[in-house]
């Protein structure tokens, strides 16, 4: 490694004098072979020395290591560096590391700039070393030019409200609420149904210890119910969320229960009620009345009226039988839904999962053959509190089945349903088979499986135990189930793949081991909280390894199966982790907000108010009389949507100034512009998506260069014009999918502006395909790669002359427009 340095010339290539206080240090990281295996880092560092303002450039094996950071600190002090450029991995990973290093050496952390030559370069162009090295030089050049224009910033601190909200009252939600409440914070526990308890309350036993599920859950439920710091909001749904980390304003719709707290759950009202409907808690295997309690151990232990079913649902009292039957007089039909507004500092999302409905797999006959049931239905059947009082019966004739089959992977690991492994079904089936063996040892049990995944603590033991107890495991999923219409018996056709022979088993009952999936209505909360979802539909964590309970929205954490399929133990573990993460924020009591807010120059402002109209946070105030508008810094989230809206150049965004971005564009397009694709990617979705393409090593054409903005709505038409005039091959503007925008749908302005720009391109005579708008989420690395590939294909059809001509046309058009203006 070379550490020699070059003192910069006093003038740049165009002969402009370089300000004397610009002393940039460039560090090119090899990242072991991750970068160094593809990019010639020494060559990049050598080249960087020729850039204006660069007084030293070094390459190093691991910049993020202690010696790497020490190097930066020592150089800042020894060489009086005023800017630091680190070319390494994604700033989403190590920007905080290098910022801290700069700060500890006395350099303002905002004077650091990173060039992403790993995720966006070496990992995605593994087989083209020359192109990757050229691209790395471009990225470093862009970073150096932007760095020169960076300004020191000071971050604002905002107070964190010391109250939390937990959404979802399953075992994960209960655990998170209890942890936070025990730590001394006020907690609002929001549950959609009439009782907390969730999926765990429906289960009979838990694996691998065979504990009684409700016996270990009920004490936690009642603890949550009576905890002085927990306010239980059942029959409640989150309707609106405003604000940001530390200061959320949440509107909760609390539906009327029609039964007051004085209810002693005596149950006199039930018999009086004439209305019946299948019971959701028992998976439709029994009936409940319109007035009911979800289950015996429900918390709160209060009845409720299902107003959709009640005869009084038209707003008039047509039936008062329950009211007459209630000796405590605690039924109140005049109760109304309420909207509560609560302020909280942190939110834990623990909304849980739905169970896969196997009706669509017609060959299995679920829904047509009464003796084909799901594992959740089985849990209710074998539970002492269930519809058959714990007797295992088959639905067709209510007789005890002597031969029972379990079929695995129903609704999991399939392109026809959910592509992922549901994580809990193998062990659940093993547990269920042991439960049957425990009560009725003479039952023959067959488990038809594909792979048995017994990976957790104590799981393999349980699997072995099931085999010893005589459960037969057969590898090969039945292709078809045939019902004998006279007896209700079921014949399974399939192949034992280990023997290579076909089988035909006749069973008394078949239990489908169904998978779990994201809640059907998960999209609603996703939009309210600006969460991302992975390709399987589950809420996405901020980092799969190192921030597994954080979300990309500050102050919002994930617990339980809403983040991905998991069993009770993992849900509880994650819930405590989420509570702990929320606790850190609240016990600190304040949080720093990045200095990336918008700012308005009052001298240039004409008080037209256009910026205030597009602000998603109402963070710009002012009026004509005042003569100018101003940004409320604490409310501004730093999307930058307001900047391109200003026709007078009065608005700019701190740390993402027009000047800084333009310097990146100019640097990038200094050589061979017609061969390059300029991509603007928003920090939250598309930049992360491009990072994900890198992590997944998805290869795409090397001529794309990415510039990061916080939101795609920051992209200004001035930038597009500038890039086209400089003869760029193509421009990509990419952001979050509509509805997923991290700035309250600010990206609708991106779309509007792109459409306007396409019209202008058409008018001027520029090939409209050269500007592309694409929505790429943080999970869609392959989509990002595909978009780039398609653009590259389109670009190959254009000649350098065509691009030059179109640039000329735009120049003339703009100068004409400038004359008339």
């Amino acid at each position, binding site marked *: 490694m070379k550490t020699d340095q070059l003192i910069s010339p006093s003038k740049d290539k165009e002969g402009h004098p370089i300000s004397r206080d610009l002393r940039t240090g460039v560090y090119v990281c090899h990242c072991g072979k991750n970068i160094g295996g593809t990019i010639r880092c020494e060559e990049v560092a050598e080249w960087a020395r020729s850039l204006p303002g660069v007084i030293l450039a070094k390459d190093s094996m691991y910049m993020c290591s202690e010696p790497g950071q020490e190097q930066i600190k020592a150089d800042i002090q020894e060489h009086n560096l005023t800017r630091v450029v680190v070319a390494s991995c994604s700033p989403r990973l190590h920007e905080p590391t290098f910022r801290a290093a700069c700060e500890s050496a006395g350099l303002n952390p905002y004077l650091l700039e990173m060039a992403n030559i790993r995720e966006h370069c070496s990992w995605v162009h593994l087989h083209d070393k020359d192109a990757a090295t050229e691209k790395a030089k471009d990225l470093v050049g862009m970073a150096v030019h932007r760095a020169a224009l960076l300004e020191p910033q000071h971050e604002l601190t905002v107070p964190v409200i010391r109250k939390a909200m937990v959404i979802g009252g399953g075992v994960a939600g209960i655990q998170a609420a209890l942890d936070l409440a025990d730590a001394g914070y006020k907690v609002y526990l929001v549950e959609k149904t009439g009782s907390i308890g969730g999926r765990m309350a429906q289960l009979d036993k838990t694996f691998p210890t065979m504990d009684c599920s409700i016996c270990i859950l009920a004490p936690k439920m009642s603890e949550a119910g009576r905890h002085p710091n927990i306010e239980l909001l059942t029959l409640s749904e989150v309707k609106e969320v405003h604000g940001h980390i530390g200061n959320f304003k949440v509107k909760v719709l609390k539906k009327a229960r029609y039964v007051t707290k004085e209810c002693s759950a005596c149950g006199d009202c039930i018999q009086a009620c004439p209305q019946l409907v299948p019971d959701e808690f028992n998976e439709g295997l029994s009936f409940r009345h319109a007035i009911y309690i979800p289950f015996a151990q429900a918390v709160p232990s209060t009845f409720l009226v299902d107003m959709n079913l009640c005869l009084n649902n038209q707003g008039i009292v047509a039936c008062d039988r329950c009211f007459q039957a209630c000796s405590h007089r605690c039924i109140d039909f005049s109760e109304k839904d309420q909207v509560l507004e609560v302020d909280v500092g942190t939110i834990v999302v623990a909304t849980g999962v739905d169970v896969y409905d196997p009706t669509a797999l017609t060959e299995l006959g679920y829904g047509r053959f009464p003796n084909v049931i799901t594992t959740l239905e089985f849990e209710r059947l074998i539970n002492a509190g269930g519809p058959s009082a714990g007797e295992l019966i088959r639905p067709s004739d209510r007789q005890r089945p002597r031969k029972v089959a379990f079929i695995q992977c129903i609704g999991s*690991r*399939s392109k026809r349903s959910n592509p992922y492994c549901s994580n809990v079904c193998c062990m659940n089936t093993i547990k269920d088979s042991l439960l049957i063996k425990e009560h009725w040892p003479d039952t023959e049990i067959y488990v038809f499986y594909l792979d048995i995944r017994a990976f957790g603590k104590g799981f393999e033991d349980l699997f072995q135990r099931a085999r010893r107890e005589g459960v037969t495991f057969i590898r*090969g999923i039945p*292709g*078809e189930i045939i019902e004998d219409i006279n007896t209700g018996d079921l014949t*399974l*056709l*399939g*192949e034992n793949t280990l023997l290579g022979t*076909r089988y035909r088993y006749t069973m008394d009952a078949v239990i489908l081991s169904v998978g779990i999936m994201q809640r059907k209505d998960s999209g609603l909360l996703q939009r309210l909280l600006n969460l991302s979802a992975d390709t399987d539909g589950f809420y996405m964590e901020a980092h799969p390894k190192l921030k597994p309970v954080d979300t990309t929205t500050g102050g919002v954490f994930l617990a339980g199966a809403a983040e991905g399929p998991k069993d009770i133990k993992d849900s509880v573990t994650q819930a405590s982790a989420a509570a702990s993460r929320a606790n850190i924020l609240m016990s600190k009591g304040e949080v720093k907000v990045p200095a990336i807010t918008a700012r308005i120059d009052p001298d240039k402002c004409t008080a037209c108010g256009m910026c205030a109209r597009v602000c998603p946070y109402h963070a710009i105030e002012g009026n004509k009389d005042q003569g100018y508008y101003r940004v409320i810094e604490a409310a501004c989230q730093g999307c930058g949507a307001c900047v391109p809206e200003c026709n007078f150049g009065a608005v700019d965004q701190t740390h993402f100034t027009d000047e800084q971005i333009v310097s990146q564009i100019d640097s990038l397009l200094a050589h061979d512009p017609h061969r390059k694709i300029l991509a603007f990617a928003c920090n939250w979705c598309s930049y992360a998506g491009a990072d994900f393409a890198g992590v997944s090593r998805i290869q795409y054409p090397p001529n794309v260069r990415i510039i990061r903005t916080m939101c795609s709505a920051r992209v200004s038409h001035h930038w597009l014009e500038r890039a086209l005039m400089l003869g760029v091959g193509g421009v990509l503007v990419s952001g979050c999918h509509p509805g997923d925008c991290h700035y309250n749908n600010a990206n609708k302005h991106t779309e509007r502006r792109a459409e306007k720009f396409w019209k202008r391109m058409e008018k001027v005579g520029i090939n409209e395909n050269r500007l592309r708008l694409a929505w790429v989420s943080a999970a869609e690395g392959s989509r990002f790669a595909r978009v780039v590939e398609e653009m590259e294909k389109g670009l190959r059809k254009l000649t350098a002359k065509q691009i030059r001509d179109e640039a000329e046309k735009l120049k003339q058009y703009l100068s004409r427009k400038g004359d008339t203006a």
Partner: protein
Amino acid sequence: MIGMKLWQHFSREALYECYQCARCTGSCPAMEVSPAIGPRETILKCLNHDHEDVVKDERLWLCCTCHVCEDRCPQKIPISELLVALRNHAVRRGNVPDRLIMAIELLAKTGRSMIVHQLDDMRAYHGLGPLPPVPVDEVRDILKATGLDEVVEF
């Protein structure tokens, strides 16, 4: 390489998704009544072993291309397409059942794949006129256009 040719007609990529669940075997009506090679075994042999085993095996022709396996395949593997590719390959390697060759010869000679005795009498009984003559030359041209004459003499 013969192996290379097969993968030109069928993308091997699709087979990697097979995890041998054998739902296809349980769905196969041909296996119910004959010693046909099951779809699962066919895929496994083509993917991890020598697919020549399958190409040489006369049982390849027992599949009735009913598409049920494909319909129920959780990984949406185009099994019928694989079968067609394998059969095309088998024909070129000389693995064609005699009965099939007879049918092809008949088709080329008469324009019909099957001779039904007293067909016209039966049609007359049901009030139908005799079948129109088949443009045999046209049928032969079509057969040639598909390249069938390269593998079966007619």
